[in-house]
């Protein structure tokens, strides 16, 4: 269990830093990007390990990533996109999409379609997690800022 957890932590940390470098993210955002991604993926991994459904675990990971990403963006006075993108990359179903392609290429249409649907559900849960995180953030700041929603939450 510990080995798997460490693999998930370090894999998400370094993988997300590499991804952030690919999109020319600002230098000072790289370490926080890695931390957010590692913690989001760790949450997903722990929930999945405890037997919670994969879709719910992805949602929780994306929601945590969205909230912590926006927190970092406000604190560092940076654009939120950098942190939000890094937080979702580890849960993007790369393996699921590859299996879908491989199965469809081999002519196993039914199995490929099954994998594809799983991957689509994961993508939908990521979107939902990001979206709910964004709404919660706005709600919180609408209370703090009486002018309402005319507020740029990610800076």
């Amino acid at each position, binding site marked *: 269990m510990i080995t798997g957890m460490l*693999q998930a932590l*370090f894999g998400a940390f370094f993988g997300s830093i590499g991804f952030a470098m690919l999109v*020319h993210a600002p230098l000072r955002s790289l370490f926080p990007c890695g931390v957010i991604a590692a913690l989001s993926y760790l949450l997903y991994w722990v929930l999945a390990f405890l037997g919670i459904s994969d879709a719910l675990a992805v949602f929780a990971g994306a929601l945590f990533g969205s909230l912590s990403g926006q927190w970092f963006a406000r604190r560092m006075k940076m654009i939120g*996109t950098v942190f939000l993108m890094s937080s979702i990359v580890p849960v993007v179903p790369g393996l699921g999409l590859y299996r879908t392609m491989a199965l469809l290429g081999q002519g196993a249409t039914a199995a490929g379609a099954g994998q594809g649907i799983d991957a689509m559900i994961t993508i939908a849960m990521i979107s939902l997690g990001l979206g709910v995180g964004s709404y919660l953030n706005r709600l919180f700041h609408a209370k703090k800022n009486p002018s309402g929603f005319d507020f740029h939450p990610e800076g």
Partner: protein
Amino acid sequence: MPEEALSVADQRCMEALQLAGRIIIENGGETYRAEETICRMGRGMGLTQVESFAVPSGLFISYRRADGALETSVKRVHRQGTNLTRIDEVNRVSRSVSAGKMSTEDALSQLRKIESIPGPFSPGWTVPAALLCAAGFSLLFGGGWLEIALAGGIAAVVQLVSLLLQRIHMHWQASSIAGGFLTALLPHLLAWILPAFSLETVIAGAVMPLVPGLAMTNAVQDTMRGDMVSGISHGTQAALTACLIAGGALLSGALLRLLEGRLIP
């Protein structure tokens, strides 16, 4: 009614607003961010009734001039690539202008500099970045040392090819197809000469740098703010990228079956 010439101050304001919005959209920013930045900067410059409408391919800006006339401009924008450092820098300028800490002239001069900054790394650095990204995700998918090294190496080669395609002015779609093709082909070829390794882990890790993570994030962000046109546009871009990568991988599968049929009759 005869057309009145714009005053120098009005020209500078409009130029700065257009440039700020254009840099954000050209470098992969969300359209709501471009709209908000234009409105905030405009108000910071002392303009009234500032309105902006942005889509991923263009900008519309209008404001009320001091003489009461409405000034409007349309700007066609062509997506250049992804550079979040430039967007972050525009955001910094926008904050200073809207807080009244930066003049229009200074903002314009800073925005002109931002337009051409390469970001924290030169384009060549994207090769080790792809290596780090693929190696990290290969570890996350449970890969051992060999899988990590192979995924990183293959992603670096794919990124190098992508840079070469960009240099000869090929569109991003070509990079996605070539990326999917090489990412699926190279591990199979290496499997013929190297000791046994998990093909699935190597391919899944190596494909991660190609994932349209930014387009996905922008699609969700724009849609959640009610900007359906931009949300659908970014979502379509993400889906198209994924389909092109998949198409490239399926092509390599067909080629491999052909090769295996010829080499192993």
